């Protein structure tokens, strides 16, 4: 069931993030659900790893656990050092996390785009100090990278979904952290911006950063260096994206409802609509016979 294609490197320094026997239970005391069950993960530094899996598999929870944002049992270590031993600010400067869903409540609506991006500099700023020139430079760079610089004075609440997502990405980039964890970073982005996000991530990785992204878009997920497949609270597969076994594992975990096909722009993953499979979305009903 769980097959790692390559052995997990014993050299801890080559790992940006590692977790052993990770267990996460969520929910109120009476109905706790085990979301992650004894998961072992090794994320190599300087790579782009995509985490994919069916709905409810525990991908977001895994990302949160790696970022230290949910109470978890087991060990998580960042750059070879246990996560709990990292001082808050140092950890925040090293590991940046982007939430799923893009600030759904109206908390930031009255801030300008510039101020939202400047929030990413909080781990770097002195406690009572105003933003330094380095902070301003980082925010400007981040906003330009996400093409949000032109409307930096606009209120966050007046932006569309895609524009907000780009500002939140700029916030993430402004941290200038070597390890970036992103949960559904492509939400609301149109295809041109999705393509540029891929280019941005590739550039970041080329500079030596580590990127981990939870994606539901499998085509883009396969653009990464490594693929991590999570299903039902366990890691089912971890391997290089280019390998044939990875593509087979992907098809397998989605019960062969998806197909990986080659094209002139690379690998594309499509849902398989060619035949009506047994057991439809609303299981328990008879399948509809067109004839």
């Amino acid at each position, binding site marked *: 069931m769980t097959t790692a294609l390559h052995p997990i490197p014993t050299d801890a320094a080559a790992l940006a993030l590692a977790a052993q026997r990770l267990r996460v239970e969520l929910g109120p005391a009476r109905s706790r659900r085990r979301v992650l069950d004894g998961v072992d993960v090794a994320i190599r530094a300087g790579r782009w790893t995509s985490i994919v899996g069916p709905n409810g598999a525990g991908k977001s929870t895994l990302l*949160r656990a790696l*970022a230290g*944002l949910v109470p978890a049992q087991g060990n998580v270590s960042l750059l070879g050092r246990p996560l709990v031993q990292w001082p*808050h*600010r*140092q*950890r*925040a*400067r090293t*590991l*940046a*996390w982007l*939430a799923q869903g893009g*600030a759904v*409540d*109206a*908390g*930031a609506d*009255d*801030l*300008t785009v*510039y*101020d*939202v991006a*400047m*929030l*990413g500099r*909080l*781990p770097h*700023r002195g*406690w*009572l100090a*105003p*933003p330094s*020139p380095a902070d*301003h*430079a980082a925010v*400007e*760079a981040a906003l*330009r*990278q*996400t*093409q949000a*610089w032109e409307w930096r*004075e606009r*209120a966050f609440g007046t932006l569309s979904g895609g524009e907000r997502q780009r500002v*939140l990405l700029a*916030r993430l980039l402004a*941290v200038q952290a070597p390890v970036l964890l992103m949960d559904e970073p492509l939400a609301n982005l149109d295809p*041109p*911006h999705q*393509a*540029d996000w891929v*280019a*941005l991530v590739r*550039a970041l990785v080329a500079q030596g950063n580590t990127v981990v992204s939870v994606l539901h878009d499998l085509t883009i997920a396969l653009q990464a260096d490594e693929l991590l497949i999570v299903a039902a609270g366990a890691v089912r597969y971890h391997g290089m994206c280019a390998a044939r076994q990875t593509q087979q594992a992907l098809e397998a975990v989605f019960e062969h409802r998806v197909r990986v096909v080659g094209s002139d722009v690379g690998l594309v993953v499509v849902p398989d609509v060619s035949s009506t499979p047994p057991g439809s979305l609303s299981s328990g009903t008879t399948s509809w016979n067109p004839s």
Partner: protein
Amino acid sequence: MKPSVWSLRLASAPAPLTSPTAARCWPLAAALVLAAAVLGTLGLGVGSTGIEPVWAMLADPIAAQIVWDIRAPRTLGAWAAGALLGLAGAVAQGLFRNPLADPFLLGSAAGASLTVALALAALGVSPFAATWIVRLGLTGAAFVGAVAAVLLTLALARGVQHTLRLLLAGVVVGMVLGALTSLVTLLVPDVLQAMQAFLLGSTGFVGWSACAIMMAVGTVCIGAAWALARVLDGLTLGEATAQSLGLPLAPLRLALVAVIALATGTAVAQTGLIAFVGLAAPHLVRSLVKVTHGWLVALASLMGGLLLMAADLLARGLVAPQEIPVGVLTAVLGGGYLLWLMHRRAG
């Protein structure tokens, strides 16, 4: 290579000397302070005996006493109480990420009402007794009650980790203490009228010592809130993001709750329960400028002070020589503003 929509070249433009935020905010702050100064001067001439004492000030010591010992501290006290409430409102709205949050959210109003009712009842029952309640006075009782209610809310919510639980605990504490207050007024019906006066709020009993207390507490609270403003900023993107940015949420949120409790308790102790100032002041500021919380708490204080001072002037001057309870005026003004806001958002 297809041209990219995003440019990857880092810009090397020089950093701006003053942040654009500051450029927006200083004029507003100056305007609020100026308006407060103008209204404050006007306040010296408004009261049940009209403008005469001002002219007679130099000759008549009683007129001078009216102007300097009664009207001046009332006007300044109204500003200070409004500033405290505006500050507490801004912090509450940021802490709970709820634009409808007000300073009394954590049960402090109900707590103050209960201890005031108990103090009034004790006064009535044993007028000769030098009990601690009599010594404390109504002012001290109100402050103790407000702070104790917030502590009770914290205990009920078992800390500040869960915002929703804290909100819910605040509602519960408010209801339970409110019911207890009603019980006290039932058992000792004499206190009912006095309670009503307290509930509607008034600056009528504010002297120079009360002003000094409010200004001192206000300075401490503004300093603390400004220092902790980045927690509020971080929280705007959600608790998980704030945590990922390295903010130690639990102790700092506790500190912010303490700021709310202290500011609200002090204001309630001196002027009773005055609604809407804490709710409306941050909204008014946000409708004028878009700022982070460091500026917001300061501007909301100034705005709250101006609001309450204006309401107090109207309360004293509209039907002179009688007075309207200032809480009624703030409710009318604040409610009207919120209605207009709703109308504007809907349209």
